[in-house]
């Protein structure tokens, strides 16, 4: 009866009794897959790890174009990892992840240009400010259910765009803040390759830390809160605080990525952090399976490369899609989001090969 035991609610209490049998998966969020994991889990993990190391090592040999795509994927992956914890594990829908990137980026720009902060210092400051903003949004919407949170974060996205574009116009006459070269412990990040290694390291660290948090007590609290907030409250879980913590963590990650993004691009401009970007991150989180932190990494790569691949494919067929610009990308993103939400691939598979689990 392991599958029953590993259902999220039954193991997600804040303090499971010492004698209770725990499923081998340890992960409360990934509980229902415990049974499948037992066989060949180690081999699979080993394979994924080796593939990841190979990808990190081999990409720099593929030229600047792919390296730039890799860097963009890594930035998207880190933001989406933060989002997938919030939406998937804690069940709080956010449409404002890009707003937190913007808050982090602008904080860093002001600190670096006017107060002489370094890269890592700015990253910490940007993360903290964005995290506080996230906690504030969570506090403001503390009395309502998840659906209001979607509206609240969407509103935040709009208000951040309006206010920060005003800041940009006032301080840089709309040119955007020019960022200096990033320096990490004395090493300057100048080429795409430097950034690639730094971003891979950051992706790994964020993945590791988030995974530890989600598998630990906070993650269990969030899963319980997601399943039923009332039950969670009656079990003694401080729901409001847990909610604020989930939001703060997710936006802290986003803020830090915003700083990295600003340094990587060389400029901080509000047009880089539109609602479109928030939807991109949401699509990545959904594609990688909501709540799966590792899933966000490969999904980010897919979503980043997809528009390019689509363009190349259509050009090979004789169509030029550049004319359609961002419109086509929006359509494809929307279709992916809708299809994954409706589990279209699984349903299709069930129709092609009835009786076989996908």
């Amino acid at each position, binding site marked *: 009866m392991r599958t029953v035991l590993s259902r999220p609610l039954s193991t997600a209490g804040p303090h499971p009794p010492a004698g209770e049998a725990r499923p081998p998966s340890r992960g409360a969020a990934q509980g229902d897959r415990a049974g499948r994991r037992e066989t060949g889990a180690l081999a699979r993990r080993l394979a994924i790890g080796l593939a990841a190391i190979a990808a990190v090592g081999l990409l720099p040999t593929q030229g600047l174009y792919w390296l730039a795509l890799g860097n963009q994927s890594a930035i998207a992956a880190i933001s989406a990892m933060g989002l997938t914890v919030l939406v998937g594990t804690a069940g709080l829908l956010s449409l404002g992840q890009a707003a937190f990137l913007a808050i982090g980026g602008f904080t860093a720009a002001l600190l670096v240009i006017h107060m002489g902060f370094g890269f890592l210092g700015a990253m910490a400051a940007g993360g903290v400010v964005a995290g506080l903003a996230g906690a504030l949004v969570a506090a403001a919407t503390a009395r309502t259910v998840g659906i*209001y949170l979607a509206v609240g974060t969407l509103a935040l996205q709009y208000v951040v765009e*309006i206010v920060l574009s005003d800041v940009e116009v006032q301080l840089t006459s709309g040119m955007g803040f020019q960022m200096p070269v990033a320096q990490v412990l004395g090493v300057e990040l100048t080429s795409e390759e430097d950034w690639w290694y730094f971003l891979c390291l950051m992706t790994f660290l964020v993945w590791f830390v988030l995974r530890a948090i989600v598998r630990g007590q906070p993650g269990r609290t969030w899963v319980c809160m997601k399943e039923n907030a009332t039950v969670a409250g009656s079990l003694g879980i401080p729901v409001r605080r847990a909610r604020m913590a989930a939001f703060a963590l997710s936006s802290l990650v986003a803020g830090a990525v915003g700083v990295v993004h600003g340094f990587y691009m060389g400029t901080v401009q509000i047009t880089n952090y539109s609602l479109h970007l928030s939807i991109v991150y949401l699509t990545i989180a959904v594609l990688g399976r909501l709540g799966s932190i590792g899933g966000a990494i490969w999904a980010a790569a897919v979503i980043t490369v997809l528009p390019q691949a689509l363009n190349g494919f259509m050009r090979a067929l004789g169509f030029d899609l550049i004319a359609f610009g961002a419109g*086509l990308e929006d359509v494809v993103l929307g279709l992916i989001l809708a299809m994954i939400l409706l589990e279209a691939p699984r349903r299709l598979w069930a129709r092609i090969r009835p009786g076989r689990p996908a």
Partner: protein
Amino acid sequence: MNVSLLVSILASASVYAALATAVVLVYRANRVLVFHLAELGVLASYLMVTLSGEAGWSLPASFLAALAVALAVSVLVHVLVDHWGRPFGHFVGTVLTIAVGGILMGLIGMIWSGRTVRMILAEGRTDVFGEPISTNTLVVMGLCCLATVAVHLVVNRSRLGISMRAVANSASLARHRGIQVSRVLLVVWLLSGALGTIAGIGMASLSAVAMEGAVIGVSAIVAAILGGLTSLGGAIIGSILLAFGEQMVIVYVDPRYSQVVPILVLFTILVIRPSGLSGRTESVVRV
């Protein structure tokens, strides 16, 4: 307060009211918060301006064509959310409407590539209490009010409205009483699509046909929340309050900051009274 200011408040209030009514209608029926209605309205306004301008159709004919397209999209969304998406709950349904909004915006961008066009429904000026007011504004106001009132009458006075309210109350109970829930939901989506079309065309006619027109979606949702999200009357009152606040900021502060008003209103209402201004609290589960 002068007449022209009052009229512009009422005009944007009537646009918001039409859209907020649509939001409330759908939310009551299946607990899905719709995010794509403003985008649908933008699509309809682009269609209408293209047909009436370049293709040379008359205004009513191009309006009907735009409405037909918007209704077809609404049927698709109904199938997507209520049939395919039903097993996954209203959370997924809400995100599905966001996805549809993104697809619509992408299509609009691909076809019209962000063009901004003027669309006037009626030329000239009309005297209202001795002050000349643009006839276009009055026509928009009339259309949106008419659509909103018509939907209110349908919900409150017709047999169909009674079944809508039954579905809103409890879908399974309604099904047991012989109401065809799926058909009622389809009607709800069609009505909301029509309201979204009229509101979108109205907004486009008041300002311009542009992709930025999709911003009114947030205002409408805020107006609906202000009214309690399940109350049709509350949605109208919320719309008037919101339009009043926005116009005050436009006149006395800075037009650019008018979009901040709905957001400030939203945060205030979420902190102080999440159930909205009306007394109905059935849908808001407090944590």
